[in-house]
């Protein structure tokens, strides 16, 4: 991993997706990694799992940077991806949820219910945006479990941090399914360009299903973000050959999509920044 690769943009998707053919051993050299967004932790956890499942040994070289190494360990990237029972982390290197597999819809409800009280009790600086965080987990993980359709299920992780003296909560959600563009084209074949398809999926009432009551999940993540105490927020989505960024600053929404290298699945990062603290 080149230095700086820990950002949510994970510009190394092609390398991580690569088929290593007959190799029987791989090395994850994270020694130069600085910072570790939960979306990148999800990506690495799935990469490690894939190679182990294919019978390869995986040699992991941990980050040399102290803070990044603590976070790398708190995410338990050397271990198998856990279930909801092991999801929550009690104040370890600011990790809130370690990479956790949600294979059934009941597990989405279970995770949101389990997260609510610890979020309030242990992370009161970011708990002021909990309605937006829980809406994102509920709607986006539900989408991934319902529409992602892969053996890997939906994998989610979260952590907190500080940016310019403000608190930040970061969420990463990944699945190895068909990806948003292909799914959305099931009912909207006109969205042929992937970043356009992702951008449309973020609009109200646009769904890959034929049902008129669907397609409101992303909109409600935005609505709850706008209703929250977030100073700013950002959603990043990558799927197929498209990437899309939605920035929210001072209640203004700015969308931007672009073409990028192809990747399998759908990868979503949501970050909320706040100066608020929970008024108990």
């Amino acid at each position, binding site marked *: 991993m080149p230095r700086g690769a820990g950002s949510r943009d994970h510009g190394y998707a092609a390398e991580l997706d690569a088929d290593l053919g007959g190799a029987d051993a791989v090395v994850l050299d994270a020694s130069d990694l600085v910072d570790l967004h939960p979306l990148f932790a999800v990506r690495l956890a799935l990469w490690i799992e894939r190679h182990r499942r294919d019978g390869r040994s995986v040699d992991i070289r941990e980050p040399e940077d102290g803070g990044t190494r603590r976070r790398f360990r708190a995410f338990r990237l050397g271990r198998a991806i856990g279930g909801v029972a092991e999801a929550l982390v009690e104040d370890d290197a600011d990790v809130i949820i370690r990479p956790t597999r949600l294979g059934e819809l*009941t597990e989405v409800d279970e995770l949101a219910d389990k997260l609510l009280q610890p979020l309030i009790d242990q992370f009161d600086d970011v708990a002021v945006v909990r309605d937006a965080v829980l809406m994102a987990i509920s709607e986006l993980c*539900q989408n991934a479990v319902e529409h992602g359709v892969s053996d890997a299920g939906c994998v989610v992780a979260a952590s907190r941090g500080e940016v310019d003296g403000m608190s930040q909560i970061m969420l990463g959600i990944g699945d190895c399914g068909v990806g948003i563009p292909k799914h959305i084209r099931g009912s909207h074949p006109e969205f042929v360009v992937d970043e356009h398809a992702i951008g449309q999926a973020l609009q109200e009432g646009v769904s890959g299903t034929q049902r008129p009551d669907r397609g409101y999940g992303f909109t409600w993540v935005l609505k709850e973000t706008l209703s929250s105490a977030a100073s700013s927020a950002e959603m990043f989505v990558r799927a197929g050959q498209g990437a899309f960024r939605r920035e929210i600053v001072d209640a203004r929404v700015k969308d931007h999509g672009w073409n990028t290298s192809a990747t399998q699945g759908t990868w979503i990062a949501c970050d909320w920044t706040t100066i608020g603290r929970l008024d108990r």
Partner: protein
Amino acid sequence: MTTLENDIPQSSASPRYVLGRHGQAFSTRARAEQIRAEIEQLAAGGRDVLIDFEGVRSVSYSFADELIGVFASRYEADNDSLRPVVIGLSAQAQRVLLGSLEQRGLSDEVSRELVPH
């Protein structure tokens, strides 16, 4: 001024479903479908049912729409069907529930009848 109590069905026989007994946060349509079936069973063919959100701190749009939105659409289409009256809402839950009813195009009259606000 209308009080919350005056908006609640007057029949003391109206069954009450206490959602908070099942958790503080509710996320998926699948969970809502399960709870809707439990409420229909509780109502046992009666007309009114109280759905008490006291203690519920977070509901997703999908959950609210699949639980209350579906009930409300049926009630607006057929006033003889089960009438769910929602009480004990947090500000977050009220915001999301009303958003669901608005998206479904329900009248203000029905929205106020089912979700007193």
